[in-house]
């Protein structure tokens, strides 16, 4: 600009002004960091049941590791065995109302010696959020069982799935995970992949800054309890989007409610659901020379490798992986040959998880149509059956590991 220069104030005065500004900035950031740290240490989800959609990334709410750890602490005293439920929407309890979700039945089955916390996210894999929280709390709760579910013949990523990897990065960059060389290699491969240059920089800077300033914890505290500022499918337009997330109820419908029947097995999606079921084993299996169904060698190698890398060795023995059967409504439509292939896939998946050092069972084979809310999710009736099955396994793991006298 061709404007005339204004006379500069004396150097001393300029330094003083700068000093005040940067001093104030530092004090302000330190104060915010302190508040964030406090927020992360507090459980501000009274009556927490599960991660219902308004407090998940689906609704632009990104829970932090500290926030979930605080929830776990409020659900489990140090003298109890902590049971962390991870996995996907099936274990989250889709089609089961909050008051009757299967993890409540699990808690009732297990009794006061155990504290159950449901940290399953929709569409997540066994190594996502719940697994991260469980690993972070390994020293605080040495007596612990981690439960997750998955489909048969499905590989897992040791650093979690795309949608929930933010939790892994939080725990990883704050140095709260077990050092596992194979996982370290996966982290390096992921971050150094050429097309992820910008994403890697974002992750590194975000996590480094958050470790110091704890802004995620602070904003979640504000967003949950006071006002939310980011538009999402919940209250997208102003001023509804400002509604704090604590005001959104858990509205999960009850599959056994007669008004919901029409939505459970709609004819319009039958072909698509059957295709999904068929592909679960269909894409992973081929015929052996003797005519039996056999897992494709590439897929088997993938599963062996990823299951072995999924959890740190010391934590595998207290990990239970559930392999979820589909509803008999659709299974009845499979041919005998397809059913045989399916059976083989479930059997192999359980065996491979066990070979990797985890506990594993399949469930749902003997469940009826009413035990399911749809193809894969359980109704509250099926949830109770699952709770019984899982409680037995949890007690067995606890006994095996000497958690309870």
């Amino acid at each position: 600009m061709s404007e005339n220069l204004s006379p500069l104030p004396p150097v001393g005065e300029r330094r003083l002004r700068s000093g005040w500004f940067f001093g104030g900035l530092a004090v302000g950031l330190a104060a915010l960091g302190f508040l964030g740290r406090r927020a992360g240490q507090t459980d501000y989800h009274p009556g927490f049941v599960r991660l219902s959609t308004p407090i998940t990334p689906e609704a632009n709410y990104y829970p932090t590791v500290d926030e979930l750890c605080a929830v776990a602490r409020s659900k489990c005293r140090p003298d109890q065995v902590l049971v962390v439920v991870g996995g996907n929407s099936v274990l989250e309890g889709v089609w089961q109302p909050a008051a009757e979700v299967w993890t409540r039945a699990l808690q009732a089955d297990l009794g006061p010696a155990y504290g159950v916390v449901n940290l399953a996210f929709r569409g997540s894999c066994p190594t996502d959020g719940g697994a991260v929280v469980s690993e972070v709390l390994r020293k605080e709760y040495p007596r612990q069982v981690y439960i997750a579910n998955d489909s048969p013949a499905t590989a897992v990523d040791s650093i979690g799935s795309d949608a929930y990897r933010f939790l892994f990065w939080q725990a990883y960059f704050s140095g709260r995970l077990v050092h596992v060389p194979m996982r370290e290699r996966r982290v390096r491969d992921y971050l150094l992949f050429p097309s992820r240059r910008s994403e890697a920089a974002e992750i590194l800077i975000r996590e480094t800054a958050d470790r110091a300033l704890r802004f995620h914890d602070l904003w979640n505290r504000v967003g949950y309890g006071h006002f939310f500022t980011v538009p999402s499918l919940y209250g997208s337009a102003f001023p509804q989007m400002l509604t704090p997330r604590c005001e959104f109820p858990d509205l999960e419908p009850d599959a056994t409610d007669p008004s919901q029947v029409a939505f459970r097995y709609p004819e319009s999606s039958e072909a698509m659901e059957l295709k999904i079921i068929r592909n679960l084993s269909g894409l992973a299996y081929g015929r052996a020379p003797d005519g039996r169904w056999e897992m494709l060698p590439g897929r088997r190698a993938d599963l062996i490798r990823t299951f072995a890398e999924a959890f740190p060795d010391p934590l595998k023995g207290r990990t239970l992986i559930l392999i979820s059967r589909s509803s008999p409504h659709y299974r009845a439509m499979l041919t005998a040959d397809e059913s045989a292939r399916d059976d083989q896939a479930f059997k192999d998946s359980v065996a491979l998880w066990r070979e990797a050092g985890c506990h594993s069972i399949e469930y749902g084979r003997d469940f009826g149509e009413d035990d399911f809310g749809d193809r894969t999710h359980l109704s509250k009736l099926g949830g109770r059956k699952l709770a019984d099955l899982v409680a037995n396994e949890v007690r067995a793991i606890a006994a095996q590991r000497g958690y309870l006298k």
Partner: protein
Amino acid sequence: MIFTTYWFLAFAPLAIVVFRILPGKGAKLGWLALACAVFHYHFAGPAGVVPIIVLMIVTYFAGLSRHRGLCVAAMLVCVAALCFYKYAFFLIGAAVAPISAALSGRLEEGAKSIMPGAPPLGISFFAFEFIHYLFEVRRGQEPIRNPFKFLLFAIFFPSLVAGPIKRCAQFLPSLEQASRGGAMGADFAEGLARVGMGFFKKVMIADPLTSYVDEAQPHFAQEHLFTRWVILAAIAFRILMDFSGYSDIAIGCARMLGIRLPENFNWPYGARNLQEFWRRWHISLTSWLRDYVYIPLGGNRHGVARRVFNGFAAFALCGLWHGPAWHYVLWGVYHGAGLGVCATYRKIPMAGILIGRIFDKEPYLGWLVTLVFTWIGWLIFFYPVSEAMQMARQAFGL
């Protein structure tokens, strides 16, 4: 949006604070050049940086030569680069496909094989700034001899991605003043406030409006007439807040360095006629088009018909500059036509004079007509032409 990345939030304070505390002009300029290069490389990647370096070298030496022919040749190189990277597929589809589908297919394949995945970051801004520089040098302005200063003019990080489009006659004295330590605390404070305002506009207003528009627009036809206009208003304010927020952050960051960038917006929806609107909306682009397209074509010097044609051409280019698609061109032509009417209607005997008097007497009427005209224009800008036309009809209950 680059300004809302963590990388930028970490980079900008470092770049600005170090620039301000470094002693000596050379150190300041060197640091700023380094920071700008790092910024450009980080966001553009090697494939995006190389074409810009080539254009920079061509422009720098053509300017340095002060040879009129070389300057014109370099301008043509810039235009060709812009056409190639941004408009190749559009031009092939528009000009070649109607004649020969086979040739069009071959050309597209050829272009794909040599083109990076996306056009180099900010290619439109680079091209316009370089053309401006070469045009001015050709007209007798002193070229930039210091390569550091030229580099800074080319890749000055606050304005690199989405402007404002700089003019070297404004930018260089401001850079000189800032590098001599002339950046004041008041600059820093005003810049910081401007950056805060930009983020507020983008994050608190534009993003929620985007979310609302995305949700509401598909049901436009089913909505009540009043709601349709609410959606139109949301579309109009979304683009204003998004773009002016971006400009505020760019201007604010530059100001924190002690460097002044041209303003880009000045309450455009308060304009009382279309000419005024374009003096308030994306000012740096409009003034560029005026100086380097409209006036060189003859401006308003050769009668009404030529004036209207020149406006038409400038605004068709303005539309095309926003993206390689016909609806952008149509949006430009729509505004070109509107400006043509706005500039000439008073010359129509009786009716024109009468309408002019009404507008003079009731300025709010002119404001309302302008507002409706520009808001309907945004439908053409954002949506496929047939959908935009349908929405425009529905907005009037037709």
